[in-house]
Every structure is written in structure tokens, then in C-alpha cells.
């Protein structure tokens, strides 16, 4: 299971977050993003969330106004892909506390941190829900305590 990229697209077609796990030129990146935006926004709710694109499968899932889009290999398990997206959203939900699109826009680095704990170079590194969250919070605490130290000293 290897994820090639993750893109968050808003319902208006705006990119909210991108993460590329393969080295891709800026040109192809924007082409893929553009293609997928039109492709996915044009699909209706009752259609399936798996799309074939180039030589990979695109899995997307809509949460409120945001589409979470990932690209996986053709022979990977699509349902796992859906599950990974769901996991990511769940964990962001907990990390931000009721996550919304605005949260991700303004606190995008946190979205990256959560993602980095869930996936390492496109591979799922942690399937336990608690563990990922724990790590992110731990690191956030570390930031906080560092600053606290600064204040005290």
C-alpha cells in the first residue's frame, strides 16, 4: 500500500493541502491537481469514490465541503485507501477538535503533522488510532513546554 499523493480540494475547487510522496515536477503536479479537481467535482454523490486516472487509482471522499483525494497504485486495495482517508479525517477531527475547512486553512501545519504521523512516505506507519494522536499531541506539548520554559527563564 503506497500512497502517491494526497490533495485536499474544496467544493469550490480550491486546493487546501497537498502532499506528494513521489518526486514530481511542478508542472505535472498542477496538471494532476487540475485534472482531478474537474474530474471529482463533476461526480455526483451516488457515484463511486474510485476513479481511474492515468496509471493509478484515485480515491476520494467528501467530508462537509472538503474532498480528500489520494492516488494509489492500481493493484492496491481501494477500500484500504478509503479507510486511510477516513482515519486521517478522524484524527484531524480529534487533533483540532471538530475540524472544519477553516481550521485546515489556517492551521495547515497541524494537518501536515497529523498526516506525517499517520503516513510515512506514503506508507501507513501507524494503524492504531490512539497512537497517532498521542504523538501529535506529544509534539505539540513539546512546543508548548519549550515556550513555557522560555517564559520561566
Amino acid at each position, binding site marked *: *500500500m*503506497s500512497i502517491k499523493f494526497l490533495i485536499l480540494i474544496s467544493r469550490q475547487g480550491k*486546493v*487546501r*493541502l*497537498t*502532499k506528494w*510522496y*513521489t*518526486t*514530481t515536477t*511542478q508542472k505535472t*503536479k*498542477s496538471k494532476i491537481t487540475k485534472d482531478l479537481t474537474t474530474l471529482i467535482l463533476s*461526480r*455526483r454523490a*451516488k*457515484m*463511486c*469514490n*474510485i*476513479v*481511474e486516472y492515468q496509471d493509478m487509482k484515485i480515491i476520494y471522499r467528501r467530508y462537509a465541503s472538503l474532498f480528500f483525494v489520494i492516488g494509489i497504485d492500481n*493493484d492496491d*486495495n*481501494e*477500500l*484500504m485507501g*478509503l*479507510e486511510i482517508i477516513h482515519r486521517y479525517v478522524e484524527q484531524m477531527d480529534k487533533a483540532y477538535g471538530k475540524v472544519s475547512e477553516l481550521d485546515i*486553512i*489556517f492551521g*495547515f*501545519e497541524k494537518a*501536515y*503533522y497529523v498526516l*506525517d504521523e499517520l503516513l*510515512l*512516505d506514503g*506508507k*501507513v*506507519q*501507524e*494503524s*492504531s488510532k490512539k*497512537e497517532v494522536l498521542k*504523538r501529535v*499531541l506529544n*509534539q*505539540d*506539548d*513539546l*512546543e*508548548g*513546554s*519549550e*515556550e*513555557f520554559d*522560555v*517564559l520561566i527563564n
Partner: protein
Amino acid sequence: MSIQFQSSNVLARLKPFGLSFEKSLTDLIKGIRQHSKESSESLAQFLDNAIVECKNELSSNDMETKAMAVLKLAYLEMYGFDMSWCNFHILEVMSSNKFQIKRVGYLAAIQSFKNEKDLLILATNQFKKDLNSHDHVHIGLALSGIATIVTPNLSKDINDDVLMKLNHTKPYIRKKAILAMYKIFLQYPESLRMNFTKVIEKLDDDDNSVINATINVISEISKKNPKIFVNYLPKFFRILEESKNNWLIIRILKLFSCLSKVESRMKKKILPSIIDLMVKTQASSLIYECINCILSSSMLSPDSSRDREVAELCVEQIEKFFEAGDPNLRYMGLLALINIVESFPVLIKFKGSWVANTIILCITNDDLIIKRKALEVYQYLINDDTMVDYTRVILKNLIPGSVPDTLKYDIVVKILSSGAMNNYGHIPSFSWYLSVLKDIVTLTLLPNANDILAPEIREKIAVELGKEFKNLSIRIPSIRSDILAIISEFIMNPRILDDCPSLLKDLYWIMGEYIDQLEDEESTLGKKIQLFNCLVNVRVDRVLELNDKLNFEVARKLVNHENTEILTVLIPFLVKLFSSIVSDYTNAYGEQGQLRHKKVVELAFDLDKLVYFLGCFENHLHYEIQERSLSWLEFLKLCFESLDVAEEVKKMEIEEVEYYKNIGDEDEDEDEGEDDEGEESSEEEQEDYIELSSEDEEPKETESEEQVDENPQSFAVEIPDTLDTVPMLLTHVLPTFFKSYDLPPISKSSQKSIPPPEFDLDSEINSPKFELFSDVEDSDTEEEEPVEVKEEVKKEERLERIKYDPYYINDTTSKPKTKKKKEKVESTEIPEKKVKPKKIKKEKVLILDVEDEEVVTAAPVKKKKNLLMIDSSNLDNFDLSVETSTEDDIDLSALRNALEKEKVEVKEKKVKKAKKKSKSKGKEAKDTKQDKDKEAKEGKESKEKENSKETEDKEGQESQDSKETEAVNSHSSSPSPGVVVPVKKSKKKSRAIIH
């Protein structure tokens, strides 16, 4: 405690730099949102300003300001702004001791770092430093960074440090380390060779997520190279049995399907437990993966009844997917069904053909993804019973506006290929099939103007349909007349000429080839003349100087048509058509081989039109068209002269122009009322004229009266009613151009067995032999039968001669088939399913397979490697059995040796040169052989001496040499070419130096 602070706003306020930090980024984001509402220019302006601002902030000494700038740039990177220019600043931010800043640095580095040499040298040190930090959070950051950024050089340098982390006390680090190792393996395969056991050890880790990560790595590697893991199958199997984590199980199943490619015996052991898993689990992803594993590792053979039961069990599981009503599950279920159907086509009818019905339902689904997928297995659904119904189902998709154009092409191809299946074996009746083809043409190529398909799709569909018509007409003689009837409509339709001319290329050919089999209810000859006029009669409209509402739109369009391909086919077709008209005339009105003078004039008139039409291409830019038209023109003009009725033809021409002028005038009067009928009215005119000309062929008396009515002077007065002999050129020579040989269908394989003609460009073309041959042909054309009756010797000679002539297909292969076919035609009096000899079809299939294989083998060569891309291609052909070797060391030592030897060499050369000089001097002085021999011996001796000196001088070096050769030997046995090549080179180098 800290969590409390975290959540409270108090802390945010307390943060001395955090406040400004967040504010600055928020401002940026808010600014972007604000400006994007206004206009794209103001947004671009704002973003440019923001980047300049970031640049300024980067040059500040304050680390926090820098970090903030980097973060902002990382945000802008999402909008497509390149941030690699600030990579060194990112590196600086990474090196901060503050976790918060370091974290930002790594975040940006992962987004932005690529393969920059200078940068990565510095980055390597930073990674090493962080990897060896006492704080595990720092280590984790570094590992994440490495996994994304790793390059070949970096992976070599960092290998050992990451390796150590595999035994870190915290599982958090261990799992990250093993995943990072995978990326190192990809870039530096030697590392996998050396550390293979360490990877396997991690399967016994105490922590589940570490095992999970390890299996992940192993299954990724096994995609490329399953062999090396075969020995650990029992271990994987144990994990599978013990684990309850579906993520892990799915990954092991993936691993199994990779391993099964190299180890076929595993089926027996794992199949039962996979089935067990499948039946017990609730998770659809796992069910799917089980089915996938069973099928992709080809554990089931279609012959075994037990395996069939397993397949049926799988289908039952899939049924649940469809029952759930979830679109994703439907898609997955369809994937699995397709998988099953491909290996068990029999199961199509399983459960009262539930499978077939499901697939058809998916084809009718609105979701294009599902529709497209389901179409892939459409051909499996086809049999004698379902053909008509299912074709109707997918034909509906061609109705304008239902699906995108590209899919329409796929559907057309599906219909055609399913029709041709089993040598057209499933088609219940060909008239039905032809009506389907006709529907396809009207739906895809001739829809209303606003539903018209994209030009390239139209083109592709037209080519496919053309091929299909051609195939049918060649292979199924009984329906040729039906095909011709349909085709003649298309040929006379000016829209086809505009929208999809490629279709006509094949249609013209068919029409020309089988024109004699054209049938028409009213009058076959009339139909032919109608066709002929429609295509050829450009003169009338030109003389009348019409530019719209043409009488012969198609002809005018053809003259100016850009598609050279169809024009090249058109020219011979027209001649064939004319030839057929001539023979119909002689058959219908011939009286003892002669024709009434009036009929001869009509023929000549047609011929004149053809000459005029071909004359339009005399100066065509395309060579082939020019050549063809010119060569026919010469012949046709000759025919025209031989008819010797030029004057009467001139008169007919004037009459015709007059006639159309009148019609045009009448029409204009009518048209004042109804303007929009332009096209139709011109067609009507055509029909009028056709009626007129078709009446010509009916018994003479009645029709001549009519003619008198219309054109009182011309026919009645001037044309005498005598019998004329039609020249041989028209009656005999012309047909022999086309009818000397029958064209049987030849399968691809037998076509391939025809040896390619060997062109001998050096020898004289006009050799005496060739003249002889043309003599024979001449006699052949004039009196066909006598020649054939004559001795077979001549025939054989001729065969021998044309054997290497590129313009002849080898007779020996085609002859027997011709006979067979003729027999068929005679014997089978149109059975509903006319089928060609099965042999041919089977051969065809075989060839396709062969071609496929070729494609597969050729593909990897074509695949270009992206230098930037980190992929697993390094692990291709990777072999563990090769002893760990250190390429670089060998190279280095070889270089060192070489250098040292070179020093020696320089010295030796001087000595040698001196000796050579003496040698050459000796040669000049002494001529006798003996002396030469002596000299040679001396030379040898001296060389030996040199060698011994060398060995004495450099004992240590030699021992090094021998070591090196040992290394070389051990390598040359290894199958990995990547390793062998450089070593061999160094060997060669050293040899060259020694001698």
C-alpha cells in the same frame, strides 16, 4: 499540565513569538482569501508582495522570523510557487534546537527538497545530528525527513545511522526506521543485501506497529523481487494466523499474491485459511483482498471442480457487495467479478446468470467509471442467446448525449469485436448485424449537428466501421448485396464526406470490388448510374456556375477534398464502376454483341464525364492521386476515341446543362416559398434525373417516346438507330484490369508466411524476361480462356517469374483457399450463419497472442526512466545470493593500482622505447629470417626480464592484483549485471596497463 496550557488562549497570548508567528501566517492566508475574491491580478500582486516580504524576513538574523517566513513559503508552495530557492534557509531552520522551529524546518524540507548536491551534503550532516539526538522526537522528525528526501548518495551515507535505529528502545522510532530503510533500499540496493536478516528480524518485534511496518516494507520489495522472501513463508503464515489486525492481514495477502508468482506450491497450505478468513470476516476490504489474492495468485484452475466451487463461493461473497447498495462496494464487487469471469467464463451463467445480469446492470449504470469497467468483460457475456439483447443494451449508449465521446468509441469497438467473436459465430442473422452497423453510423457519425462527436473520435470510429464493412463483405459473400445497398447510401451522402471521410476509404473499395453484386429493386443499372453521376458529374454545376444548391454536391466536394487517402481509392473505384456499367449495358441491350447507337452515345457520355472528373486531378499535388488519375486518363481517353461519337456527346452535354438549368429555375420559383429545403431539393433533382436515366434502360419504345417529349430534337432526329459494335477496349480489356483474380480472405498468419519481396535495385529493370512476361499478359487479357487451356508449363513459368514480383501475392497460398470458398458459396445457399473455415480464425487468434507478447517484452525498453523519480526499479533483478561486495572499494583500489602502475609504466616505457628502437635498427640491417628470430628471442627475454623486475619491485602490489582478480571471479558468476560491469572494466584497465 501542558495540555491545559495548550488548549487555553492564555498560552497563545503568552507566547512571545507565537503570537506574531500566527498572526503573520493568518494575515497571509486572509490576504489571499480577500484578494482572490477581488480579481486574479490583485491576487497575483498580493502574492508577489508576500514573497518579497518572505525574502526579506529570511535574511533576518532572528531564527523565529526565519521560521515564520519558511512556513509561509511552505503554504505558498501549495499554490504552485517554487520554494527551492530558499532551501538553504530551510536547512538553517532545521538546525535549530527548538523543536517548534525544527519542526517547521522539516515540514518545509519535505515539501521542497529535491536532488541538489550541495544542499544534500549539508543536509546529510543535519540528518545525522538529529538521528543521533538523545530526544526521540527529533529522531522521529529526521526519519520522516530521510524517508522523503533520500537520494542515492544520501542513502549510502546515512545507511548505518538509520540501521542503528532499528534497535531503538522506542517502537515509535523502530517503525519509522524500518520504513525509512525501505527508501534507502530503493536507492542503495547493496544495503538490502547486507541487512536482509535485520529486516527479517523485525518480524519478531514485540510491537505490532513495527511488525506492520516491516510487512509493509517486505510486501513492497516483493512486488519487485518475490524470490528472496520465499524461505520465510512459514513466518508470514504464522503472522497471518495470529494477527487480528485487518490492515496487517491485507498486506500479508498482498505479499502472498506476489510470492505465489515464484512459489506455486504454497496454494495447498494457504488456500484453506484464506477461504476461512473470507467467510468469517465482516470487513469488505478483507473479503475483497481474499478474493483478489486467490485469483491473482492463480490458485484456481478452471478444470478442477473443487476450484470451481471455491470460485462460486467467491461469487457468493461478491453478491453481498452488490446487495449493500454502496457505490464503492459495487465498484469493488465488479472488479472482483471481472477477475473471476476472466478465469472462469463458465460462471457467467452461475445462479441463474446472476453474474451476467449484474454486469449488464453495471453497464447501464450512470456512473461512467462503473460503466467503463463493466464494458471490459462485455465479450464474456455474449453467446447465441444474448447477442441481440445485450447489443441493444449497449447500443443505447450511443444515443447522443448519453455518454462522453471517448466511451462511445470504446462501445463501438466492443460491439464490433463481440460481433466478430468466434468468427461471427454468435450473430443470429447478418441482416440484423448490418442494421446494427447502420445504426452505429447514424448514431455516431451522422447525428444532429449539435450532437456531433469530436473529430478525432469520429475519425477513429469511422476507421473501425470501415474495417468491419470490409471484413464482412470479403468474408461473407451472401450478404454482399445488402452491404452494397447500405454503402451506396453512405457514399451518396455529402455529410459523410464532410464529417468522416475515413469511412469512405473502405466503402469505396468495397463498392468497386463487388460492384457487380449490387442489386436494386427497380433497376440495378439505374442505381449504378445514379451513383456514378453523383460522384462524377462535376461539369454541370461548373458550367451553370452554381456555388450552392449544387445538383451534384458530392462530386463537387470530392474534387476539392483534402483527404488524399480516399481520393486514391476513389479513382480505381470509379473506373470499376464504369466498367460495370459498360458490361451491364452490353448485357441488357446487347444484340449479338452490338449495341444500338443511342446506347453507345450514352456510354460515351458517361465516359466523357469520368474523363472530365479525373481531369480535375491531373495536376493534383499528391503524387499518388496524380499518377493514378493520369494513367487511367490515358486509357479512358483511348476508349473514348475508339467509340467515335464525340459530336453526339457534345450535344448531350449541352442538353444536360440545359435540363439542369431549367430545373434550377423552376426550383428557384418554388424555393421562394420554402427556403430551408436546400439540400433536399437538390437530392430530389438528382432523383429526377436518375429516374430519367433509369427509364433509359427500360424497353426501348416507351422510353424513347418520353425522351422525344423532353428533348424533341436531339434523340429523334440526330441519332440514327443503328447497331454499333462496342470497342474491345471497353468490353474486354477494361474488365480484365479488375476481374482476372478473385480476392479471397487471407488470415494474418498466412499473409505473414508470404516471403517479403527482395528488391534488387542494382539489376536492370527492363530485362528480356520481363518483356516475355508482359507478352503473356497481353495475350491473357485478350483471349483469356485459350491461354488457360494451353500448357500448364507456361503457367508454371509465369509463377516462377512472379514469385519475387512485389505486386503479386504468392499464388500457392491463395489458390487452394479460393477453391474452398467457391465451393462454399455454391453449396451453402445462404445458411443464416455463414461461417468461414474455422482454421483461419484460430490462426488469427494465435497471432494476436504472439503480438501481445512482443508488446509486453518491448515495453520495458521503451519505458523511460525519470531521473528525479524515486521508484523501485533499482530492485529489478536484485539478487540476494550475491555476496555483499563493496563496489566503491574495488573501484578505488583498482584506481589506486592503476595509478601506481602508471608510474611504473612510464618508467618501463622509456626502457621499451629504447629497445624497440634497437629492434627496428636491427631489422633494417639484417634481412635473413634467422636473424629476425634471434631478435625476437632477445625481445622476449628482455620482456621477461622486465616482468621479473616488476614483480620484484612491486610484490605488495601484485598481491593486491591477485586479490582483485579473485574478487572479479566471484563477481563474474553473479547474475547481476550492474555489479559485474564496473569490475570488469577495472580488470581490463589493469590488464592493459600490465601488458
